[in-house]
Every structure is written in structure tokens, then in C-alpha cells.
């Protein structure tokens, strides 16, 4: 029923067809009303007919007469020549430059209404100006609609004429003539240049057309613009902005040619799809972050010390076991805190080691924190806020975003299409399954299993923590075995426990596999945190037992990282190879699957270890960089040779947001830990750059600011850090969050209501349609399609305002029972949603 009204869009093709008298059946009748307006002097009929329709009859005659009327030529002519029918021209341009269905636009009935339309400033619809405010609400929407309509649909009829150059040329002319309407775009300034560039680039046209448009535009800009002498200041500004753009492009170029691991990543994407590739991208991102850290800490801490320091590194006898334990000749090397002293080095330029150490470390942590915080926030915004969680359109998403365009091998493509097939089946099955209420007993069973599993896992985690503590306390410190046993113990737990966790979660019967994944991830995270916390607490508690506890702590984390490499990476890789061959021997075809979640948690754990150890070991970043570099190749070859693509699709965008969040939280915890260390733990007296101070933070208060203990600034600082003040700030923050949430929720409610409204209006439309159908016995619709319908057939009580861009009843103003007037369309709704997405 509703399919009877095909919605015509603004294609020149439509006009051409109309003008040449072709029977374009699918075009709605009201389009022709517009058409007639354009071709003929407007007939401002006022008396007997309802207005818009009167032109249609006029037009039908008209179009029969002018069989070979070329719409486009006429339009171009009317643009160039002095036009005697000003309104038509304006109207025409207005419509063409208008985003399709988002702005209100009604048939003008009388000259007065024409005026009303024209009163709106032209720029209101101008896309190019809108591109400036594209971030503001609505702007980007209008812009996109424009782009979609102007370029998109016109292009689709290009091919009908076999794509001769002439057609392309005409097409380009058409676009140029439209763009020339916009003043902002046609100015001869770098800003307008940039605007033109983006407008052209985002236009969905083929490149040949774009190039021709670009040439013509720049020509016309040069002709039009009067040579004004630029002010000195402006000239400078333009020069700078041009240079800056050039610089940006060259940076982009450089970044492209320097892109790390480009070929491996492409290979993985081609063979395994985006899911696995997202792990490797995350890995690469962390690697680059660590390289940056390594560069900073080496340049500002290690190199000055090694080159200018008076006491050189002891050239002890080198042994391999020392490399693993981090002891022996490494103890007094630049790897650890203890090697650095509180001297001021350099004879010409004094370089104070304590300050360098402190501020470099501070800088590294702050920069990492900011980078990770921003990435996490951006990723969260992109995958959760802008998409409203992305869960609403389960079916449509599966269809429209189902295929992974990166896939480049036949095997992967087959697997992918199988995966899509089974997922669709599952979706349908879920849908068809009647929502059977689970019986009380079943629910009780599920809940009790979950509670039991949670208790089990929590107690297991607590047990490992306690066991570790017991182990550290009771095994004697001196023994060589003790040094090795602790890292082996912890890392084995961190490798094996996640397997147990993912085993347990299977029995908890979570409906959504994503919930199960998140449960496993957070449990693994908890486990890692507890283990590291126990280790650190042990060292801090026993700090006074040794002469240089900072070095010992650094050593401990060095060992942890080395053993993590040996156990979690080398051993598991070996295990996977063995498993692979066993499978191959037994079943011929079996491959392993790459566990993205486990692998990601593993590198997050590794990163956490590194951040804890970094404070007391400035060379640790170099170790980490080497480790990650080797790890990349091990993982890469394991994936490429032993694994097969997963049969389940992986929601890369949302899970990677979770990973970023976890790494952010871990850095946050470490920040707190380090804050505690520098403000409460006494430094060791015999070693390190800070042995002049009792606590590390005093390098700021005493060393730099030279505060006295009774000065006012000090008093203020003490006051601000009082728990009461902090609690007050926290309460304010909580209130702000609560306010934002409430606002977001209320907006969600509005969106929901609008959605309902839209559905109602659609239902009303259906109903009115059927009513009209009954009254006219089908005559009306037949004639609507024929573009010759008789306005008398309309029920005069209905005030119809057709939108002739959609030619549909869809935008009729309804005066419904309660007297409430509303008007809704898809794009209005989108605007509202946009509004909502800000929160």
C-alpha cells in the first residue's frame, strides 16, 4: 500500500524525463508542480483550487508541448542571463542548494509566501558555510544531506549516456554553477581555498568530475575576485596558514612512509579480519608509546649520567644469569635507581641529576596519562556515546556492517560468510524463540551458580594473593632460588588463571557473550592488580631492611618482566606449536584460534608491570621496547602459521574501548601508588639521586620552591590536601556527574517520544491513505501516480502541505484529535538524536 508512493528525489533525470514527456511512473505528482513553476510563469491562482495542484494541470500540457526541452541547459541559461522570473530562479536555486529533507519547505501558495521563503537568508542552506559549524548540532547533518543529494544522486544517472566526456563536462558545469552561489566559498582567500578543498573532497562524485569542477572553480574565483591589496597582518596570517597546511601534509606523508609494521598488519587484516588486527594495532600503539618513553628517559636521565658522571659503571664480570635475574653486574649499572647520584654534573652547563630524574619521570607519567586518557575518552565517545551503545539495530547492523572489506583471501572470505550465516541464523532463532519465562527453579539455579562462581573466583584470587605474601615472607631473602621463584610463581598464575577464568565463565550461562567476556576481563584484571599490589606492599613494608630498597624493587620488576616474557610468551608459543602438531597429527585439519582477549590482557599486565618498575629503573623502557619488539614477531608468526580466523565475529570497536579503559585504570592505580611512594616512603640514605631529602616530594617543596615549614604557601598546600577539602571537591564532582547523567537520560526520553511520534505519524499516513483510497475507489492513487490527479478529490478538511521534494504525504501537517500539531520526518528525528549524542 504504502509502496505506491515512490518518493522521487531531486535528480535532474527526473526533470529531464518530465520535460521530455517521458512516462516516469514512479515519480510523484507533486514534483511536477514544482516543475511547472520552473518552466512557466507562476500561476498564482487563488480562488477555486487548492493551490499547489493547479499547476500540475498546466504543467502536463506544457510538458507535452515541449518534448525536447532540455532542463539543464535552460537552467544554466537562466543562471547566466538576466532572468525575468526572479522567483523561479531563486526558488530553484534554493531547492538545489537545500539539504534534502531536513529543512521545512512548503509549496508557496501566493507571492506573499514566496517572499516568506526568500526572507530566509540564502546562507542558511548553504552547505559550505555549514561545514564550518559541522561540529555544532545539526550542522553536520545538513551538510551530509546536502552532499548526499547534490553529488550522489545526480551522479547515478551519468551512465545512462554512456559516460561520454560531454556528459561529465555538463555535469561539472552544473555543480560549478551551484557552488558559485555561495559567497563564502568563492572568496579568494586561503580560508575559502580550504573550504573549497574540503567541499570538493567530500562530494561523492567521481574524480574526473571533481577535477574539472576544481579547475573551473579556481578560474571563476580568479575572475570574480577583485584584486585587493592585502594588509600586512593578513598577508602574514595567510602565509602562516598556508605554511601550516603544507607542514601538516608533509607530516602526514612522513608518517605514512614511516608507518611501522605496515605489511604485517595488512597481512593480518587480509587473513583474519579486523578483530585480530585490532589487537595488533593496540599492540603497536603501546609499543610506540614505550618507544617514546624510552627515548625521553634515556636522553634526559641515562645519557647525561653515563657521559658526564665522575663515577663510571663498574666493569664487573659479565654473566648470562645476571641478565635474567637482573643482579650481579647489573645491580650497580644505569639500569637501576641506585646508580644515580645527587651530584650536579657538567662543568659548563650545570645539570642537576635529582631534578632531571624527578622531572623526567614526572613528565613521562603525565604524558602517558594524558595520551591514554584522551585515547580512552575518544574511543568511548566514538563507540558508545555517538552510537548510543550501538545495540539498537542488531539486524540492520549485521547486514550493513557485516562484511569486513579488509578480507583479502578466499579462505577468510568463506569463513566470514559462514560466520555471518550462522550469526544471522542465531539472531533469527533468538527472535523466533518465544520469550519463555524461566521458571523460578531455573532462575534460582542460574543465580546460585553465578554467586558460587563469583565467590569461588574471588576466594581463589584472595588465596593467590595470600599465598604470594606467605611465600615472600617466609622464604629467606638471601637464597638465589627465592629471587627466581617469586616471578615464576606470579607469572605462572597470571598465565594459567585466565584459562581457568574463561573456563568457569562458560558455566555461568550469560546470555550475551559480551557480558561473559567483560566478566573474564575484569576478573583477570583484578587478579593481576592483587598480585602486583602484594608484591609492592611486601617491598615497601620491608624497605628498611636493605641499604638501597629502590634498586631492589627495580630488580624485582625487571625479573617480573623477563619472566613474563619467558613464561607467557615463549612457553605459550611453544605450547601452541606442540598443540598445533598434535592436532595436525590427530585430526589433520584442526587449527588454533587466536584468543584476542587473553592476549590483550597479557600485554596490559605487562604494561602495568613496566609502569610500576619504571620509577626506579630508568633503563627499563629500553628493555620493554626490546621485549615488545620480539613479542610482536612471535605473536605474528603464531597467528599467521598456526591459527585460523575465528568463526565468531568480534566487535572490535567496543572491546578495544574496554582495553583502553583497563590500561587507563591501571595507570591511574599506579599513579596513586607512586604518589604514595614519593610522599610517605623514606628514601634510602646511601644511594640514589634523592638521598638528600627524606621524602622524594621534598625536591619540589624544599629543593625548588624553597618553602619553609611555616610559610603561608605551605599552610595553604596543607589545607588543600586535607581530607575534608578533598571530600568537598569530590562531592561537587559527583553532583556534576549526576546532573549530566540526568540531562542525558531526559534527552533519551525525548528521543524515545519523538520516535513514537514518527511511528504514529506514519500510521496516520497509512490510515489517511486507506481512507482516501476508499473514498475515491482507487482513483486518487492512480491519478497521483499519473501526475494528473484532481485536487477536488482531496478532503477539503485536511490541510495538506505537500513537500515536493519528497512528493509524499509523509510530511503532512496533521491536526489530530487533541489539537496538537506535529510534523516529523526522519531527519528531524536525526537532528534530535544528534543533540542527544553530546552526552
Amino acid at each position, binding site marked *: 500500500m504504502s*509502496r505506491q*508512493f*515512490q*518518493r522521487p528525489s531531486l535528480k535532474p533525470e527526473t526533470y529531464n524525463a518530465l520535460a521530455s514527456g517521458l512516462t516516469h511512473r514512479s515519480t510523484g505528482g507533486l514534483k511536477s508542480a514544482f516543475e511547472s513553476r520552473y518552466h512557466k510563469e507562476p500561476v498564482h491562482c487563488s480562488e477555486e483550487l487548492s493551490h499547489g495542484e493547479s499547476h500540475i494541470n498546466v504543467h502536463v500540457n506544457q510538458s507535452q508541448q515541449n518534448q525536447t526541452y532540455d532542463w539543464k541547459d535552460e537552467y544554466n541559461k537562466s543562471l547566466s542571463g538576466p532572468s525575468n522570473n526572479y522567483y523561479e530562479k531563486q526558488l530553484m536555486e534554493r531547492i538545489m542548494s537545500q539539504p*534534502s529533507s531536513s529543512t521545512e519547505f512548503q509549496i508557496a501558495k501566493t507571492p506573499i509566501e514566496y517572499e516568506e521563503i526568500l526572507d530566509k537568508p540564502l546562507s542558511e542552506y548553504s552547505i559550505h558555510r555549514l561545514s564550518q559549524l559541522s561540529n555544532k548540532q545539526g550542522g553536520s547533518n545538513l551538510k*551530509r*544531506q546536502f*552532499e*548526499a543529494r547534490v553529488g*550522489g544522486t545526480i551522479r*547515478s544517472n*551519468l551512465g545512462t549516456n*554512456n*559516460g561520454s566526456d560531454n556528459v*561529465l563536462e555538463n555535469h561539472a558545469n552544473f555543480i560549478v554553477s551551484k557552488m558559485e552561489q555561495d559567497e563564502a566559498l568563492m572568496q579568494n582567500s586561503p580560508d575559502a581555498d580550504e573550504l573549497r578543498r574540503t567541499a570538493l*573532497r567530500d562530494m*561523492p562524485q*567521481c*574524480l*574526473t568530475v*571533481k577535477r574539472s569542477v*576544481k579547475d573551473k572553480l579556481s578560474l571563476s574565483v580568479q575572475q570574480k575576485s577583485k584584486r585587493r591589496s592585502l594588509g600586512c597582518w593578513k598577508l602574514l596570517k595567510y602565509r602562516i596558514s598556508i605554511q601550516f597546511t603544507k607542514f601538516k*601534509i608533509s607530516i602526514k*606523508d612522513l608518517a*605514512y612512509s614511516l608507518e611501522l609494521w605496515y605489511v604485517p598488519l595488512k597481512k593480518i587484516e587480509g587473513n583474519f579480519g*579486523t578483530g585480530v588486527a585490532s589487537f595488533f594495532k593496540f599492540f603497536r600503539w603501546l609499543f610506540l608509546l614505550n618507544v617514546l618513553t624510552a627515548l625521553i628517559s634515556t636522553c634526559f636521565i641515562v645519557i647525561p649520567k653515563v657521559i658526564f658522571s665522575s663515577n663510571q659503571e663498574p666493569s664487573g664480570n659479565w654473566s648470562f644469569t645476571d641478565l635474567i635475574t637482573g643482579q650481579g653486574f647489573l645491580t650497580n649499572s644505569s639500569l637501576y635507581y641506585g646508580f644515580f647520584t645527587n651530584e650536579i654534573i657538567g662543568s659548563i652547563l650545570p645539570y642537576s641529576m635529582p631534578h632531571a630524574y624527578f622531572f623526567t619521570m614526572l613528565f613521562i607519567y603525565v604524558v602517558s596519562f594524558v595520551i591514554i586518557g584522551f585515547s580512552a575518552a575518544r574511543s568511548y565517545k566514538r563507540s558508545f556515546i*555517538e*552510537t548510543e551503545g*550501538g545495540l*539498537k*539495530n542488531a*539486524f*540492520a*547492523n549485521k*547486514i*550493513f*556492517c*557485516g*562484511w569486513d*572489506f*579488509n*578480507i*583479502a583471501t*578466499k579462505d*577468510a572470505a568463506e569463513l566470514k*560468510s*559462514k560466520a555471518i*550465516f550462522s550469526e*544471522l541464523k542465531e*539472531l*533469527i532463532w533468538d*527472535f523466533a524463540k518465544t520469550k519463555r519465562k524461566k521458571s523460578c527453579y531455573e532462575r534460582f539455579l542460574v543465580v546460585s551458580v553465578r554467586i558460587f562462581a563469583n565467590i569461588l573466583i574471588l576466594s581463589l584470587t584472595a588465596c593467590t594473593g595470600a599465598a604470594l605474601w606467605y611465600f615472600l615472607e617466609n622464604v629467606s631473602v638471601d637464597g638465589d632460588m627465592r629471587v627466581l621463584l617469586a616471578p615464576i610463581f606470579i607469572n605462572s598464575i597470571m598465565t594459567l588463571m585466565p584459562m581457568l577464568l574463561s573456563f568457569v565463565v562458560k558455566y555461568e550461562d550469560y546470555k550475551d557473550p559480551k557480558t561473559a567476556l567483560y566478566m573474564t576481563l575484569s576478573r583477570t584484571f583484578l587478579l593481576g592488580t592483587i598480585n602486583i599490589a602484594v608484591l609492592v606492599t611486601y617491598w615497601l613494608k620491608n624497605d628498611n631492611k636493605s641499604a638501597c630498597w629502590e634498586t631492589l624493587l627495580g630488580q624485582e620488576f625487571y625479573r617480573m618482566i623477563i619472566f613474563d616474557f619467558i613464561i607467557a610468551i615463549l612457553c605459550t608459543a611453544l605450547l601452541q606449536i606442540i598443540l598445533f602438531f598434535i592436532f595436525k597429527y590427530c585430526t589433520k585439519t584442526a587449527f588454533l584460534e587466536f584468543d584476542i582477549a587473553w592476549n590483550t590482557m597479557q600485554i596490559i599486565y605487562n604494561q602495568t608491570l613496566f609502569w610500576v618498575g619504571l620509577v626506579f629503573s630508568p633503563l627499563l623502557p629500553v628493555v620493554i621496547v626490546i621485549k615488545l619488539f620480539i613479542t610482536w614477531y612471535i605473536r605474528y608468526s603464531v597467528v599467521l602459521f598456526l591459527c585460523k580466523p575465528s568463526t565468531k565475529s568480534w*566487535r*572490535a*570497536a567496543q572491546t578495544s574501548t574496554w582495553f583502553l579503559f583497563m590500561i587507563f585504570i591501571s595507570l591511574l592505580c599506579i599513579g596513586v601508588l607512586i604518589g604514595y611512594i614519593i610522599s610517605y616512603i623514606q628514601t634510602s640514605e646511601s644511594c640514589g639521586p634523592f638521598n638528600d631529602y627524606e621524602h622524594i616530594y621534598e625536591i619540589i617543596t624544599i629543593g625548588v620552591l624553597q618553602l619553609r615549614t611555616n610559610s603561608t604557601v605551605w599552610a595553604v598546600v596543607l589545607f588543600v590536601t586535607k581530607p575534608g577539602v578533598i571530600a568537598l571537591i569530590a562531592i561537587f564532582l559527583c553532583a556534576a556527574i549526576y546532573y549530566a547523567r540526568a540531562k542525558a537520560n531526559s534527552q533519551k526520553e525525548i528521543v524515545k517520544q519523538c520516535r513514537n511520534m514518527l511511528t504514529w505519524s*506514519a500510521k496516520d*499516513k497509512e490510515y489517511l491513505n486507506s481512507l482516501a483510497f476508499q473514498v475515491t475507489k482507487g482513483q486518487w492513487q492512480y491519478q497521483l501516480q499519473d501526475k494528473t490527479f484532481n485536487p477536488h478529490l482531496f478532503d477539503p478538511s485536511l490541510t495538506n502541505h505537500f513537500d515536493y521534494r519528497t512528493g509524499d504525504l*509523509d510530511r503532512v501537517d496533521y491536526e489530530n484529535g487533541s489539537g496538537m500539531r506535529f510534523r516529523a520526518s*526522519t531527519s528531524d528525528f*536525526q537532528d534530535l538524536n544528534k543533540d542527544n549524542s553530546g552526552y
Partner: protein
Amino acid sequence: MGQAKSQFTKEELQDYEDLTYFTKKEVLLVHQKFKALAPEKVGHNRNAKLPMAKILLYPELSVNPFGERICKVFSSSQDGDCTFEDFLDMMSVFSEAAPKSVKAEHAFRIFDFDGDDMLGVSDLRQVIGKLTGENKLSETDMTVLVQNILDEADLDDDGALSFAEFEHVIDRSSDFLNSFRIRL
């Protein structure tokens, strides 16, 4: 690379850089890939028009169920044959830098098999058919599926998805940007 460089004038390269989401180096790389599809033809005339069968040799397109549609959408003559500029355009839209709106516009046209500017039931059926490949869904399953898609996305209830409705879905999908992309 040196060879390819000599094939373009500076102005042309600048034009390509301005009009696509690529840098000059990437444009040259695209040309290399284009040349690899038909070395002798492109060797003679760098902007030669390659038939669709040749374009479909590109690995990502060859396994893509919508390969032919993609070629047709991007071909300036609409028959699937692509010149280098068409190919560059295609790669630019599929690149990482292209914004969601541009991608959505092209995705819409790829899925719009009958070219009526709406994704109707037949379009949706064809899309699903291509996605599942050899495994065919039963007729009832297909109907349920199409019905569900329309229920979710067809906001004005006219039995087909307009571009605005399609974009509405895409806007709310976090995975679209990841999946609708071909790495150079």
C-alpha cells in the same frame, strides 16, 4: 616509485592530493597497485580504462561479495570499467581518512542494487544473499530477517530504507568505520 612519479605532472599529483584523502605518496602507491592489475595496458596509458574483470583481480575486491557492485558504483561510465581516477576514488573512499558520511553515501549506493535510491525489500534480499554466499537462508528466514531490518530502521514505515534512514543506522554503528575500509 621513480617510474610512477614520472607519469604524473606535479599539478596532477597536487590535484589528486587535494581531491582525495591521500597524500602524494599514497596516490603513487595506488597507481602502482592499479598498474599491477594490468601492467602492459597501464604502461602505455596511465589512465587506461580497465575492464571490470581486471579490477576484480584486486585481492580485497576479488573475494568481496559486493565486488561487482563496488566497481559499478565507482566507475564513471557506470558499467564497472574503471579508469585510474575511478580506482583512486574508490581507494580514497575506502581509506581510513574518509569520513563516515562519505563512506555511508557510497555504501548506500553499493547496496542499492536496482538504483532507485531506496533500499527496498529486493535490495535487502540481494544484500543478504550475497553476504551468506553459498549457505542459503530459507525463504521464511529471509522474510523474517528483512522484516526485522525494516522494523528497526524503516522509521517512516514505507517499506523501504531511504538514504536518511540508512545513514541513521550507520551513524549508530560503531563497527561500520572499521569494516568499510580497505587498507592500501
